């Protein structure tokens, strides 16, 4: 089985197949597991699904998130302070899965915690809890052989990042083994909200999209409906992280926070769901 093969039994593959048939684009929220609390995370995931989120990236906290900006860094610190560990995290995955049979869940983290817990052991536990794939920020394609083999064995997807700085040669290597979807970083830099796209972004994204057999989604810095619309015109979906996570860090009662998050998410999801006439 090659990295690009698709299995309708995997929820990530199924979600993109459904979107394709509907002529819609993916909306992929990233949230930090355990912030503001564990039950709140589960409720938020289910709300997001109800509003139209297609895949959930659930952040597993790491003490030293070197590719993240202040917001996601603060969320990871908060999650660790609140006691999020492997058992708590997988408990949240299980609770989401119990109420949502279809929402694909991607375990989003850095390598060290997963490595320490045991790559295969943790992957097995994540699969059993109901996760569908992994994204490990500091595990580039050159260092990923073991994890790729584990994901293949367990029918989990391994999602790679590609950046504007990624050369065509590297992109080929990534696309050869990556599965589920490709997460294209809209700009060089760290996570966080931004107002515009870098020069040459459209051209580069179009080239990546042409080279990829798996869906391509764009993230890093997306926080407005206009940005979601712009991105969805060029690829298969948009990831929104910091804009949501920032609001989960505010000091507010949960019902008010939740209402605000739902309003924001609804405004961001709408542009991804405008039906586009299929090209083929």
């Amino acid at each position, binding site marked *: 089985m090659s990295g690009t093969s698709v299995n309708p039994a995997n929820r990530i593959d199924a979600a993109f197949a459904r979107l394709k048939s509907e002529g819609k684009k993916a909306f992929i929220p990233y949230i930090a597991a355990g912030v503001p609390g564990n039950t709140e995370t589960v409720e938020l995931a289910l709300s997001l699904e109800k509003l139209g989120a297609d895949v959930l990236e659930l952040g597993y906290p790491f003490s*030293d998130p*070197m590719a993240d900006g202040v917001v996601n860094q603060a969320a990871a610190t908060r999650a660790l302070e609140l006691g999020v560990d492997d058992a708590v995290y997988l408990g949240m995955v299980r609770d989401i899965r119990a109420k949502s049979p279809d929402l694909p869940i991607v375990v989003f983290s850095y*390598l*060290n915690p997963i490595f320490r817990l045991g790559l295969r052991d943790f992957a097995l536990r994540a699969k059993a809890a109901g996760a569908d794939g992994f994204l490990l920020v500091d595990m580039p394609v050159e260092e990923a052989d073991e994890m790729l083999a584990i994901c293949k064995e367990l029918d989990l997807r391994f999602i790679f990042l590609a950046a504007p*700085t990624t*050369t065509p040669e590297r992109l080929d290597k990534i696309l050869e083994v990556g599965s589920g979807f490709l997460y294209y970083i809209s700009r060089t*830099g760290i996570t966080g909200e931004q107002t515009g796209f870098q020069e040459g972004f459209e051209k580069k994204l179009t080239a990546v999209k042409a080279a990829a057999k798996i869906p391509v989604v764009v993230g890093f810095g997306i926080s407005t409906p206009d940005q979601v619309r712009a991105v969805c015109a060029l690829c298969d979906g948009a990831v929104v992280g910091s804009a949501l996570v920032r609001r989960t860090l505010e000091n507010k009662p949960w019902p008010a926070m939740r209402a605000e998050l739902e309003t924001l998410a609804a405004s961001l999801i709408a542009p991804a769901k405008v039906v586009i006439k299929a090209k083929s």
Partner: protein
Amino acid sequence: MISPASLPDAWGRFGPYGGKFAPEVLMPALEELESFYAQIKDDPAFKAELDGLLKDFVGRPSPLYFAERLTEYCGGAKIYLKREDLNHTGAHKINNAIGQVLIARRMGKKRIIAETGAGQHGVATATAAARFGMECVIYMGSVDMARQAPNVFRMRLLGATVVSVESGSKTLKDAINEAIRDWVTRIGDTHYVFGSALGPHPYPMIVRDFQKVIGEETERQMLEKEGRLPDHLVACVGGGSNAIGLFYNFLDKPSVKMVGVEAGGEGIASGRHAARFEGGVLGILQGARSYVLQTAQGQIAETHSVSAGLDYASIGPEHAYYRDAKRIEYTYATDDEALDGFHKLCRLEGIIPALESAHAVAHVLKLAPKLGKDQLMVVNLSGRGDKDMQTVMDAAPYMGQHGSAQ
């Protein structure tokens, strides 16, 4: 069979250690640096420029000094100090900083960034950047800024912007995170001058290559003075750049024994230390696989050492490799032992060492008395202690009032 020149391999690995565990956005920059370095490192013009600067700007070769009274005091091995503290800017760090800034210039980069713990690497980088008129930003944990205040001022005098890092433990590890965040944002025009034999490939290799001059000079100087190779080498190990710099040239000379000294902090049992080989397990931190002080959950542990330069949760991958190969031995010295070594060197030799280097001195005080007088020992005096005045005053306020405490 030890063959140091064959490491790291093409993937940047030293056996199971090292590698390139970096976010994708950094990978092309690391590849660019790697291939540029491969082209330039044996280029005669580059070598001539570097050698000229090391001689006339840095002041190399640094002396190999016979520590007569320390030798008498220990009553065993004949002890020599490799005087990296006499380099311009007061530590070995300048060897690497000059080399990397030269590379950055040739790569067409306009802006230099670096992390710093004790501040010595920050000062060295700010110095090299000033020498070549380049913009320079130094990231430093706020805890380290407080305990190494003179170095913060020196960097600013040299025209660098010093950014205070408030995240995590507010020390070296967090400064590296922040420097990486800067680099991924400004990858086009910026070179990151990594300061220790750490981080993703090719940094551990490049830093080692620029520091190996320490051991090469030591061999020449020892042959001149004693007509033979040293028997024992001792160096402190934070990330491990001064240690690998001294050791590298001797790795394939089996008669030379080597000891790396980690920071034992308040003792291993206290949990407040930075001795990665005592309490660490295999992990991945900031680009490299090596021994990492971490929790059972894989979260990076908070470290402690009286010396900011040794206060780091992981150790250079090349050190991990040679420890496995039993070529280099590792031990630790506690804060108290290091402070004792610090005071002894002040009083016995008239040399105020950096608290980092004082860890190596502390081990010499234990090892040298057990050895015969025919044994030759070299200690890397990796830096001078001016920056540590406040820390030492806080630890021993009675010093300087009576002048007799030992």
